[in-house]
């Protein structure tokens, strides 16, 4: 667990503990406005075929310059180690990206991570010099194994991708956080700003959010809300919450009562 109040992944220091996804927005203009409002210094992006028939199609890079904001290429849509390796090697060729998000899915309905393939791919990527941020299940033993394999950050899910169900297993997350020497970033399932605060209060180092912002009624305002929520949760964690009591403890002194 990293207690210092800066967010360091591998050798990179990020200004914001909020990482946001760039999928599901109405258009690139909205994506760019939300990214700006969120204060995020890193965004996830997907690697896909160029549409060769539509030469005028707008490009993400025209709205979000990789020179101004850090791109974190992902492997969304990959269901085995081999496909995810292929995707990330292409991403690296595109602009030298070494920091990547590995996400190997195992189940189309729940998008639950396939941890067997994830472990396999992590090993290869680390060997090839990638800095790997790994989407994973909230199993404390597997999270530790990813750290042993050389993952730069471990990213357990809060609940299924895009479900907005919030944090479903605080106990597992807490165990993972306490045991880890690398940053823990809650990825997937965050539904609203308070979920991010809870994650940060548990002691997470960061939060990765996409749908909760992109699918909000007002994505730009929600992005701003997440910015405050993450900062607030982090401060609350560092401040240290009061102890819970099983009885009342009056806030006003009894002395001098008339």
């Amino acid at each position, binding site marked *: 667990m990293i207690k210092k109040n800066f967010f360091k992944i591998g050798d990179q220091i990020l200004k914001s503990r909020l990482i946001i*996804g*760039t*999928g*599901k*927005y109405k258009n*690139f203009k909205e*994506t760019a406005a939300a990214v700006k409002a969120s204060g995020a210094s890193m965004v*996830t*992006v*997907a*690697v*896909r*075929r*160029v549409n*060769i028939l539509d*030469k005028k199609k707008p*490009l*993400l*890079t025209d709205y979000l310059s*990789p020179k101004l904001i850090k*791109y974190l*290429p*992902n492997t*969304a849509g990959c269901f085995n180690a081999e496909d995810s390796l*292929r995707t990330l*090697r*292409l*991403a690296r*060729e*595109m*602009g030298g990206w070494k920091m990547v998000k590995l996400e190997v899915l195992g189940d189309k309905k729940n998008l639950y991570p396939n941890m067997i393939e994830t472990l396999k791919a992590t090993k290869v990527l680390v060997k090839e010099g990638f800095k790997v941020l790994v989407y994973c299940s909230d199993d404390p033993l597997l999270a530790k194994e990813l750290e042993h394999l050389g993952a730069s950050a471990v990213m357990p899910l809060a609940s299924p*991708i*895009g479900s907005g169900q919030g944090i479903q297993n605080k106990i597992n997350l807490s165990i993972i956080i306490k045991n880890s020497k690398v940053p823990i970033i809650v990825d997937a399932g965050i539904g609203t700003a308070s979920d991010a605060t809870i994650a940060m209060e548990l002691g997470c180092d960061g939060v*990765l959010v*996409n*749908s909760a912002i992109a699918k909000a009624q007002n994505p730009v305002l929600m992005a701003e809300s997440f910015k405050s929520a993450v900062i607030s949760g982090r401060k609350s964690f560092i401040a240290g919450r009061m102890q819970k009591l099983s009885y009342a403890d009056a806030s006003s002194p009894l002395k001098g009562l008339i």
Partner: protein
Amino acid sequence: MAKIQLNGRKLELNKKHSIAEILKKYKLDRKKIAVELNGKIVNRNKYKIIYIKNKDKIEIVHFIGGG
């Protein structure tokens, strides 16, 4: 004439094309894409010297929004 596959689409090229020429033809900025030729990544410095052959499979990818 070469029959190739570009991003899953079958195409016929009536003259010899380098990868750089393919990129130019489809107005693609080489700084924003990556190219895979028959399953192998093509080093961006070699786009001009690698020519497309019959039955080649080319994939050109870029970044899009994703979570």
